[in-house]
């Protein structure tokens, strides 16, 4: 057995060397730099930051490079890195209402204070491959126009003024904020933990779950109240300083879904909400997150919870792509001993089966022979 392990070590070492070469590719082609990844593949960086649950563009770019562009592998690398650093504390909750908006659209109202701002978007492109990008493309300088100093209030705040939409749940005095990186998730989970789970959840999984609600598995009639993307200031109340210090700004995308209304004998009908928030420009992610957040509120809102997207344990237990990939991919690692025991069992069962059928067929055989 030891011989095999030693042989394995050398094979592993050489495989990693080969990987390093495969990662580099043809050395006649210029090496990609972290700045290039961060600047030109920015949305991949955003996704790795969101699902890696660590805001650091440079590290995310490094992870993408190291993972050869495999984003789930990159997310895994970022998650592993974050475990090596001490935590200084938690930031003050960010104020997305004070975002320096670079994109902001609403599907519910045409005329919103501050306006519909398209920003850098794929929307309304024709999805035709552009050969001019193949090399040496220099874009036209961005158009400019006079910036208005008008505020851009959240659309949900506008609806809220007339009481047409439910208000956001407020924290109880002194309540602690759940953190699934510190305490394992228990069910039922509160909304803070659900949102944390969804924020780091796999975009593809959330997209499928959100889509399933639209197709009727837990339908909740969503409208995009608002999507906004831009820069938000972060402050941190450092223990030893005694007040909140500014840390700089981060890019965030926020999605407010406005959903079917509810009412009861005692409460007037009003719209309900689903919420999505993620690092960087992550529109599909935050929209899916908001749909799933709303679906997971079925129990709280007294709705029948029959669809997968409404099943908290199902959604929250399978949303994390690092956990999922770990368990799926471990199947390719040696299971020689497990498999030997399965083989042994299978052989025994087959032998028993053969013996039993031989016995059962024996009288027939004799009968045939007699005929």
């Amino acid at each position: 057995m030891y011989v095999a392990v030693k042989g394995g070590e050398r094979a592993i070492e050489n495989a990693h060397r080969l990987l390093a070469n495969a990662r580099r590719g043809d050395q006649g082609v210029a090496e990609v730099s972290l700045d290039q990844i961060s600047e030109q593949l920015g949305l991949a960086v955003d996704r790795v930051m969101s699902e890696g649950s660590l805001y650091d563009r440079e590290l995310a770019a490094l992870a993408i490079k190291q993972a050869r562009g495999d984003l789930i592998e990159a997310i895994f690398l970022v998650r592993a890195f974050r475990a090596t650093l001490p935590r200084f504390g938690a930031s003050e909750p960010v104020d997305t209402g004070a975002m320096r908006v670079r994109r902001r659209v609403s599907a519910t109202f045409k005329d919103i204070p501050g306006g519909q701002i398209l920003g850098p978007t794929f929307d309304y492109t024709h999805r035709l491959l552009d050969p001019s990008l193949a090399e040496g493309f220099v874009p036209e300088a961005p158009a400019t126009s006079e910036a208005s100093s008008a505020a851009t209030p959240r659309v949900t705040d506008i609806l809220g003024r007339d009481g047409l939409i439910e208000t956001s749940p407020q924290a109880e005095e002194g309540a602690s904020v759940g953190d699934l990186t510190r305490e394992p998730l228990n069910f039922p989970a509160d909304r803070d933990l659900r949102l944390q789970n969804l924020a780091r959840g796999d975009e593809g999984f959330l997209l499928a779950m959100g889509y399933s609600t639209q197709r009727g598995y837990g339908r909740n009639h969503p409208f995009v109240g608002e999507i906004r993307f831009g820069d938000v200031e972060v402050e941190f109340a450092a223990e030893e300083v005694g007040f909140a210090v500014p840390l700089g700004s981060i890019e965030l995308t926020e999605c407010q879904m406005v959903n079917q209304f509810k009412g009861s004998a005692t409460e007037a009908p009003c719209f309900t909400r689903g919420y999505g928030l993620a690092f960087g420009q992550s529109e599909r992610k935050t929209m899916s997150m908001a749909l799933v957040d709303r679906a997971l509120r079925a129990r709280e809102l007294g709705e029948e919870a029959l669809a997968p997207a409404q099943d908290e344990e199902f959604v929250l237990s399978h949303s994390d792509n690092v956990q999922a990939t770990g368990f799926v991919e471990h199947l390719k690692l040696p299971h020689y001993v497990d498999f030997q025991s399965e083989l042994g069992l299978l052989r025994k069962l087959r032998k028993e089966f053969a013996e039993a059928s031989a016995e059962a067929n024996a009288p027939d055989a004799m009968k045939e022979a007699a005929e």
Partner: protein
Amino acid sequence: MTTIAELPPGFVDKVLSAQSTFRSVMDAMARPGAVQRIVPMAGTAGPMMRGMAAIALTLFDHDTPLWLDPRMAESTDVLKWLKFHTGAPVIQDSSIAAFALISDGVLLPDLQRFALGTNEYPDRSTTVIVQVESLDSGPSFELRGPGIDGVATLQASVKPFDLFELLRINETLFPRGIDVVLVADDAVVAIPRTTRVTSLGV
């Protein structure tokens, strides 16, 4: 009153000192009763011994609520030192503390007042760090349990005198319970919840 500028320093080399101290505490936990030494030096505040200070710099952070005995709690030097160097919150409610710092065993409260963990998560208990007079002289004790090959002996001068009697609550609480770390200057001995201590007298 000490200003932050006059605070006793932390570790000179944070990473290596914390690693070395962690190793000493881990070895102490793995070999109950065996005396381990803490090598890295750091400044100490108020009634803190240097072993206690090194453990604080190594194990405490933002996520570990601390409960201090009254003598520690009334020392602004200790509070400022802990806040600046570890960022750990100091709390009044001992039942949710990750660590309890006892400068002098006579100030040890009823052990039932600390977090004892749950059957599902026995690790969610308070680790009690008690400063004692000596871990190489005084009455003799015999220790048995996991991590000990047969019997280990310990000579220690501890307060309260019946500390090891009090720890017998661990026998009935298991898997819940209290883990104790004894510190005398730079010497450390751990009495995890699985260790059974009997007194051999003086």
